[in-house]
């Protein structure tokens, strides 16, 4: 009697449960019980809602897939069974179909290519100027006092409002579109770069100073390598912003590009094309973002190693 009572108790495990949950992340992946363990966890609610808890890779991606699939399903159901006008809300299949015809008949690749060029050119121009400028602002108080208040002021000016000026000053060809994206990203980027540089721990800089490093050496061998990971993140985030300015930039007398296609589709009430264009820009942004993250992994192995 006694032994059975004892052995049945761990089956319920009301007491040992928190320690089990805590030990679980440390279990080796090749352990046979691992595939069963998340199942056990799923049946109980507590580990699922642990603050900053741990989640099995498979569970994570399942949840991510659900998070993406549910809105898509709602959209599909709404257009199939709901009483919405298809002119205003096209179905997912309409959008997919439009994407195919856009590719085959309307030269999607050309729109894609020119838009990529504009975004990357505007963003790269920003980066080339913002990186050294931000480095100086973040390193020298004199430069900070001189430039930061001005930059802070300009960044609150709406980039869209600069369109008339840009058209007057730069004209209406490619330069104008690049200029709009540049204005939209540059000022934010300068401040973010400056902040990244300022976040380099003072102890790292002071250690170099007491080892005899000169000012130039501290910038070259401490500040730049120390802030590089943060700078790559800043470049990734501002690349996302550059894409959001694309449609605005292509308001300026464009006759090609994804943003222009969206604007033109509105004129012909092609909501499916508007949807296709928006989703496409979103997908491109996501892809570029993931590429940056991959680059981060390769460029900074020391941040991704665990002892």
């Amino acid at each position, binding site marked *: 009697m006694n032994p059975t009572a004892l052995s049945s108790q761990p089956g319920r495990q009301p007491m040992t449960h928190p320690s089990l949950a805590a030990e679980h992340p440390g279990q080796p992946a090749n352990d046979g019980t691992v595939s069963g363990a998340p199942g056990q966890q799923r049946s109980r609610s507590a580990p699922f809602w642990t603050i900053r808890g741990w989640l099995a890779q498979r569970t994570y991606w399942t949840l991510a897939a659900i998070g993406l699939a549910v809105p898509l399903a709602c959209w599909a159901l709404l257009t199939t069974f709901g009483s919405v006008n298809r002119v205003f809300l096209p179905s997912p299949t309409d959008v997919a179909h439009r994407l195919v015809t856009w590719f085959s008949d309307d030269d999607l690749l050309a729109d894609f290519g020119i838009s990529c060029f504009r975004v990357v050119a505007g963003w790269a121009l920003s980066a080339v100027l913002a990186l050294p400028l931000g480095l100086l602002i973040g390193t020298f108080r004199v430069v900070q006092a001189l430039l930061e208040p001005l930059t802070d002021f300009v960044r609150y000016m709406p980039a869209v409002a600069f369109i008339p000026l840009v058209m007057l000053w730069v004209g209406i060809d490619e330069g104008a579109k690049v200029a709009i994206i540049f204005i939209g990203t540059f000022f934010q980027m300068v401040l973010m770069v400056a902040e990244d540089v300022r976040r380099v*721990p003072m*102890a*790292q800089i*002071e*250690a*170099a*100073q*007491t*080892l*005899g*490093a*000169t000012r130039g*050496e501290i910038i070259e*061998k*401490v500040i730049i*390598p*120390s802030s*590089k990971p943060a700078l790559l993140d800043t470049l990734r985030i501002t690349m996302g912003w550059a894409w959001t300015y694309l449609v605005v930039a292509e308001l300026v007398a464009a006759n090609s590009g994804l943003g222009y296609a969206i604007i033109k589709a509105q004129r012909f009430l092609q909501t499916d094309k508007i949807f296709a264009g928006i989703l496409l820009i979103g997908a491109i942004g996501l892809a570029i973002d993931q590429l940056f993250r991959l680059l981060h992994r390769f460029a*900074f192995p*020391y*941040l991704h*190693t*665990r*002892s």
Partner: protein
Amino acid sequence: MNAISCRSVNKVFGTGRRSVTALQNICLDIPEGEFVTMVGASGCGKSTLLRTVAGLEVHSSGDVCAYGTAIRGPSAERAMVFQNYSLYPWLTVMENIKFPRQLSVHTRNRTTSDVEVASGRADALLQLMGLEQVADAYPSQLSGGMQQRVAIARALMARPRILLMDEPFGALDAQTREVMHDLILHVCALEGCTVLFVTHDVDEAIYLGQRVVLMAPRPGRIDSTYDVPLPGNRAVEMKHSPEFLALKSRIVERIRETSGLRTDLELLQRLARRTK
């Protein structure tokens, strides 16, 4: 000539009514090769004094000299070991130790044989600190004690004449700390370094120091100095000797007196009053 010489050094943070006197009339001479430790209640300015000698802080008045020359900023002859976060996380342990070799101060006028010597020195430091196994690891993969060993090795790599240490073992466990004590005594004697060592651990201050400087807060000043009556070659057993314990109780008592609260009883009474 003294390695470090402070003559009525004052340091004031801020201006006007909000100014705080961090250092007041500091006079301290440290002859070459001496190991001096500084203790004191928190806020007594011991770290500020150390940073002033390092050239990282600028004093408001008085003279701070190293080997007779006024200190005008950080220099390779005065290397500093910080409490933490001073290693370069993007460099491996060996690259961190060799970091000073990348700097022009240490490469100027160097011959090939000098480079070979420096290379041998890096290897020797690596072995001395017991870091051979982790030479290619990144600092984030090491424990706190290991990280501090790398920081010390890196500071010694620059061949400083003066070594400034700001609570370098403050974050280490007791066992690691004891090993580090013997290691640092050994290395500094071997290198002939002059050491100024800040700590809040009185045991550590007595065991390491030939002289203990006690600082008092508000305003930060030197309260008293104590010559340590222990033989030059320290051994762990000395921590139980009567001389050691007597000096320890004197210093602990004095720190307590200067910290503003005279006795533990008073401290407890204050605590009790708060919780009512």
